Structure formats: C-alpha cells, structure tokens
C-alpha cells in the first residue's frame, strides 16, 4: 500500500524567510503525489501535483515541490513566506484500487508564520 510520512508536525518561520515542509513517500509503483493546504474552517485546496512528468513541480501561490526518487521524498518549498501561508499542509499519495484511486494523506504539518 502507498503511504506518506510528513516529518514535521509543526513548522514556524518568519515572514519573508523560506519555507520547507518535508514529506517522504512509500510506493510500490511510480506514484502520483500531491500537496494540499487547509486553512482553518476551510476545505482542502490543491497546491500542486506530481504525475510522472517534470520532477520539479510548480504550484499556486509560489509553492513548488521536487520529486526525488532516490530519496523517496517530495518536499514542499517556498522562497519567501507570507502571513497568509499560515495553515495546515498535507502531503498526499494516490493509491490505486481495484477500481479508481483513493488519496492517502499524511498526518499534516501546521505552518506558523511570524511577523
């Protein structure tokens, strides 16, 4: 079965400094990987997706992630944090089922941005 591990439950950065949210995956086949963001009392929003194309994936709001097969990692980065980035971030892998696919979520990383 597919799984993801988010290495940090909480990350705190100052506004204007880089963001790094770490994720490792486990997959028996070439995975489809995603990062979702969840703001308080809001639904999940897709930030970016990796589906076997370019290993460096650019998403919305300046976020990007790099798929590294040798390290089984898919870390999320942003060069400069903004106050509005404060939210919970989920690393997600798509797990093929007999029919269709389901999403398998990591435990989440809460990002705090200090002014």
């Amino acid at each position, binding site marked *: 079965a597919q799984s993801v591990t988010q290495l940090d439950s909480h990350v705190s950065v100052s506004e204007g400094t880089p963001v790094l949210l770490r994720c490792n995956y486990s997959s028996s086949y070439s995975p489809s990987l995603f990062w979702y963001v969840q703001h308080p009392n809001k639904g999940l929003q897709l930030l970016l997706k990796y589906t076997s194309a370019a290993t460096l994936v650019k998403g919305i709001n300046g976020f990007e992630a790099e798929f590294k097969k040798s390290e089984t990692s898919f870390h999320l980065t942003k060069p400069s944090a903004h106050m509005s980035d404060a939210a919970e971030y989920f690393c997600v892998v*798509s797990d093929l*089922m007999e029919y269709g696919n389901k999403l398998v979520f990591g435990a989440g990383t809460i990002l705090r941005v200090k002014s």
Partner: protein
Amino acid sequence: DAGVTQSPTHLIKTRGQQVTLRCSPKSGHDTVSWYQQALGQGPQFIFQYYEEEERQRGNFPDRFSGHQFPNYSSELNVNALLLGDSALYLCASSYSGLAGGSYNEQFFGPGTRLTVL
C-alpha cells in the same frame, strides 16, 4: 461552476442517533469519495461511489453507508453514532473517464463538521 458543495455545514447529534450528510459533485464529475478527518489528523478514506455503486471501501465499519443518485450526488449515512465519529467529513469528486492512469484529480468540498455528544 459551484464546485463541490456539502450540506449541512455543521451538525450536532447524540450517541446512538443516525445522521445523513449530502454532497453535490463538481459539474462533469461522476465519482464521489468520502473522507473522515478527525481532529488533528489527516483525512481517511471511507468509500467511493461510481455509477450509483460503492466500488471501494476503506477500513470503516458497516455503520457507515452511502448512496449515489443518478445525478451523481451522494449521501453518507452513519448509524448508531459514537463519540469517536465526531469529525470533519469531506466529500471529493472526480471524473473516472481517464483510462489507464493512477491519477484522477479529486476536488474537495468544504466539509460537514459533525459533533456527537
């Protein structure tokens, strides 16, 4: 396009009661998946509906059941509610028409917050 919609937004029930949550998929989508997000955890897959049938199920008891209607909307029913069923219930829709791939992007609704007292 209204995106994925869910109702109600919030719900309070007592132990032993039954609850029904509703979901309307994004226009053009034919598949609905349900997820449970307990406080402080990532969402967990409950089941998926396609062509009005449950085609896959996660590790949830039979108290959790669902339905999909001809217009692709879906309901999640939970019987004999337990305190542990308190969670945010998320509906996600996707299109199953892509052939052969592992990836069918799922779009999430805002969720229904269920509190069991």
